[in-house]
């Protein structure tokens, strides 16, 4: 874990800082609520919570411009909220209802919003990496001057197709930021036990892709690194790798008892490194906000999350006809 650059003065406005606080808090409260709904049996199957990693997506979204794209793996709720997707639509997809982003047909791992340039939500570890490079390929081909953020984890970083993609992305100068969210555990296997070298960001060197490690518990550090990476891509210099060192507080999925690490390790991270507490401290110590201001934000977020939960319970299950729609763009499925 990189140490916090606590002495550094934030070069962002009070409003920006507050918006990061708000966005990170939304993700955390949303995920806590999702965990609760899972416990009640309202959410089924797999549910991977983003709690602890909030600064990664919020920092990078602060570096993104209108029209930039993002694609990620299965721990995707945070990315969707950070890029402005409606919490109601996300939660209703988790509960498998008609009001969900995929009309209930995708679930936690498979949501998309072309409107917000969010391209999923992918359940096969590593598979979204060439897909993200393909989005960047299209932008370069169409001369859109857009950048694609392709997120994956320290676990996915060991998949072969990641390196196939690094090679082509560098060869063709694709405008893609490879964001490795290193939360230190690939499901239950620690990075030490799965990865031959400790610094994953150096793995682009063989392909001529620059990379750097970033403190993922510091939203301002993430934003700064993101801006650098985006500028590199937009200048036509090809891909960039950010290895963002972060930590997930919860298990891999809801059914993970997390016996591969100690409770103390998790507690220490929460107490000493929490990204939301960090911004809260900056806001209060810099006199950018009062306790009351922050309480008001907390209250607003609680309302947003509760509304999303209510919506996700009230929205009906998809109509049975939906079984047979969206298989082909133009035609009904064949009646075999």
């Amino acid at each position, binding site marked *: 874990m990189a140490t916090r650059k606590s002495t550094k003065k934030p070069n962002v406005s009070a409003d920006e800082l507050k918006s990061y606080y708000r966005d990170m808090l939304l993700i955390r409260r949303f995920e*806590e609520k999702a*965990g609760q709904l*899972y*416990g*009640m*049996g309202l959410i089924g*199957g*797999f549910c991977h919570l983003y709690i602890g990693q909030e600064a990664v997506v919020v920092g990078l979204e602060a570096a993104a411009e209108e029209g930039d794209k993002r694609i990620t793996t299965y721990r995707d709720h945070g990315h969707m909220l950070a890029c402005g997707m409606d919490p109601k639509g996300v939660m209703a997809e988790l509960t*498998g209802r008609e009001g*969900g*982003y*995929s*009309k*209930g*047909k*995708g679930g936690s791992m*498979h*949501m*998309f919003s*072309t409107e917000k340039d969010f*391209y*999923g939500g992918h*359940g*096969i570890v590593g*598979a979204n990496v*060439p*897909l*993200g*490079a*393909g*989005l*960047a*390929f*299209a*932008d370069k*081909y*169409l001369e859109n001057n857009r950048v694609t953020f392709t997120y994956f984890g320290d676990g996915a970083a060991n998949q072969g*197709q990641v390196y196939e*993609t690094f*090679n*082509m992305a560098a*060869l063709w100068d694709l405008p893609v930021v490879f964001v490795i969210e290193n939360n230190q555990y690939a499901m239950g296997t620690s990075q030490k036990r799965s990865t031959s070298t400790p610094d994953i960001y150096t793995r682009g060197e063989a392909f001529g892709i620059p990379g750097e490690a970033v403190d993922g518990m510091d939203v301002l550090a993430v934003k700064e690194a993101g801006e650098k990476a985006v500028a590199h891509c937009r200048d036509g210099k090809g891909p960039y790798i950010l290895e963002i060192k972060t930590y997930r*507080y919860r298990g891999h999925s*809801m*059914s993970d*008892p997390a*016996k591969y690490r100690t*409770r103390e390790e998790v507690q220490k991270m929460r107490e000493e490194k929490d990204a939301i507490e960090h911004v809260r401290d900056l806001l209060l110590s810099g006199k950018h906000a009062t306790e009351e201001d922050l309480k008001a934000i907390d209250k607003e977020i609680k309302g947003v999350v509760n509304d999303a939960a209510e919506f996700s*319970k009230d929205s009906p299950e998809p109509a*049975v006809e939906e079984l*047979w729609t*969206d*298989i*082909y*763009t*133009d035609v009904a*499925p*064949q*009646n*075999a």
Partner: protein
Amino acid sequence: MATEILMPALSPTMEEGTLAKWLVKEGDEVSSGDILAEIETDKATMEFEAVDEGTIGKILVEEGSEGVKVNTPIAVLLEEGESADDIESASSPAEPEPSSEAKEESAPAKAKSDDAPDIPKPDTSPDWPDGTEMKTMTVREAINTAMAEEMRNDETVFVMGEEVAEYQGAYKITQGLLDEFGGKRVIDTPITEHGFAGIGVGASWGGLRPIVEFMTWNFAMQAIDQIINSAAKTLYMSGGQMGSPIVFRGPNGAAARVGAQHSQDYAAWYAHVPGLKVVQPYSAADAKGLLKSAIRDPNPVIFLENEILYGKSFEVPVLDDFTIPFGKAKIWREGSDVTIVSFGIGMTYALEAAEKLAEDGVEAEVIDLRTLRPIDYDTVIASVMKTNRCVTVEEGFPVASIGNHITATLMERAFDYLDAPVINCTGKDVPMPYAANLEKLALTSTDEVLEAVNKVTYR
């Protein structure tokens, strides 16, 4: 208001569990993230955390209790200012589980086949108007022309694959495209099928219409996850938001003496997958018309060519914009005694057998399916209703073959019309051998088709 803490579901399959241990007692203050209890699920012992803050007002289920159903209230949490006396008024039964009851009407698959018309209505319209000027062309030229025409029509169409540009195509299918369209649209990839198939799918989401060439379909097995999990399923998983307009194409099936890893027919593999369209042309006219349709199609299309057919010549209509729709079989030869159903290179055996049968006075109706998803069932069924006998021909493995599926469909929709069991002529159930004599035995043959026809006609 006091809230009930419910027995949580802590795995996708958990219905009940053991409340192994309480880590809090009545009167304890808790905040979000504190561990309340240890719960044994069907898989593991899990720590159960508090979501809200408050005071534990009452514990309703003692530790050690087994078989506690999910959603049973196990404790009551009091908010600031409440006392245990408020517990009686604590609200409401557990949320009913919404999705557990399968709805009665959830059998549309069956409903669909019931609705299927008993009387097939094949589309018998000609593929091009009578009197159209024709030109002799190889399958290779037909595929090349189809790509070039579509690339002229649509700037977003591009072709990528191994050796497609400077080398002019490993099988010369992309010959001349680099010269006409340049390196931006005719792209040599490294040898990295998994990677470039994924890049192709991503590009199709980003507004392009990629043609991804696999040097052979054997190598596409490295990429099959991207073809199925990413290209075929995303439209459904996104609730209709995002389709994948992409063509995957290349030579499929056995060539000659190239051994087990380079000789396999993937027709049945891809035809299995909803979300894909699957084409396997035989003639040059079909290769051209169907590939143009494939490139324009908003869905992912698997286009299975054949190396041995590349050099074969056929008559192709000279028309400015010639396409053939998917799901429309072609009757190559009309006949009343037996129906032979095939596609791709299997058609060479089917047609040759039909010639020989005609010499013996047996008139076979030969149907080329042309597309395997969708399949033109109506043309096949209408034919079998007339001939009452059917033989299928393909080079793929026998288990779960296209022929098996045609047979099952005939049993469902034309059982009373069958005068003999349907016979499937297929490749043998062995990896492809190298030795010339064994390779010949491993494939199906005209003789096998003749033998099958004799059997179903009881001759």
